């Protein structure tokens, strides 16, 4: 067994998930490819969204992959940092907005 949960080299082996279930993996990778193609949003906009989401789900593979992809797509350092602030703001905000729920409950129970 590996002595660490994450190994950067494993990212390159992603396609190997197909070895144990080819049909589902094929569907996933075909869908994935279509999702990131230019559409109503540009491939670059999608890459920035992916970078932000990668930070939200805190996936080291996705952070590696989309930091590289954003660089390749010509996103500036500032652009990348702004995207992950958006992710962080939503994370922080989503905790804080539940404060209203907490207040509701406390108010209901209090005299």
């Amino acid at each position, binding site marked *: 067994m590996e002595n660490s949960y994450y190994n950067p080299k494993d990212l390159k082996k992603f396609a190997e998930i197909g070895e144990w279930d080819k049909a589902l993996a094929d569907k996933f990778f075909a869908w994935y490819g279509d999702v990131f193609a230019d559409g109503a949003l*540009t491939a670059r906009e999608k890459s920035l969204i992916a970078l932000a989401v990668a930070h939200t789900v805190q996936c080291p593979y996705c952070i590696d992959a989309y930091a590289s992809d954003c660089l*390749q797509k*010509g996103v500036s*350092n500032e652009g990348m940092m702004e995207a992950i602030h958006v992710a962080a703001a939503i994370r922080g905000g989503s905790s804080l907005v539940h404060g209203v729920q907490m207040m509701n409950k406390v108010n209901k129970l209090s005299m």
Partner: protein
Amino acid sequence: MKSLHAQNKPLAEPAEQLAILAGAPFLEGQLPTFQNQLQSIGQWPLTPKKLEIFQVNLGYMCNQVCQHCHVDAGPDRKEIMTRQTMQACLEAMARSGAHTLDLTGGAPEMNPDFRWFVEEAAKIGVNDFIVRCNLTIVVANKKYNDLPQFFARHQVHVVSSLPYYEVQRTDRQRGEGVFHKSIEALRMLNAEGYGMPGSPLKLDLVYNPSGAFLPNNQQGLEADFKAALFRDYGIHFHQLFAITNMPISRYLEYLLASDNYEDYMDTLVRAFNPAAVENVMCRNTVSVGWDGRIFDCDFNQMLQLPCSTKAKHVEQLSPEDWNNRSIVVASHCYGCTAGSGSSCQGTLTNA
């Protein structure tokens, strides 16, 4: 910053670079060699098409010392082409029927016979006469300030590097202050009519990634560059060529020092595009070194990989000999075939 040569670094030696390129992961079979890759698509040995381009390296001297330079150029490099060799290039070009002359370096303008060569070449009637100008040379010294006018007089097609449309990434790759000097030079070229919409004075830019990643789609980058350079600086240019960094010389050193070499080679190999092999530039170009020796391309020149022809010098170059050769390849060739492909004229496929 100094060249690898001036620092006496082992990687200044082509043999050392070739040993690395032939070593792991290719030696251990993790990645297929370029020869194997060509064999698997029925393109081995790689053969030339019609000779169209003469790419002449006027010397390795340069006013810049860019981190990614595959030439290991710099102010400390003294190799320079003589007028006699330039004359031999013009004669060989006339014999060959090639229609494009592409002057490179170093900074070709630093060769003391540069202007003489341009004037003589303009006389023999070249269809497309390219000078690879690094931009900052135009403002490096008073004696170069009139280069835009000089280029315009001889209808030279100017091709210039600008790795990004903002300061930080440009300066990190090409040196402190390079971005603003480049913008100043671009303004001077625009003022002469270079790069203006509809102008016959062609000004194209070269983008190459500032780091260990591949260039993105050329058209998309061109649109971004055009919008940003016009919005921020009022600058116009015609086309953008997206070029992949080759794992040679200073860029190879950067890859090794930053522990990116194996991943970069892996990325290049995974991005291998058989369609790009059709148009790799060694198939329609001859590269002439500062000393008159001929090579399959500027990269093979830097690696001192001799071409397989009988004649090894431009004086003896014959179109028959050249067109019947097999091209010498090694792992660095993956830089030409990754993704949409890469050459001095940008991408090689429409993909």
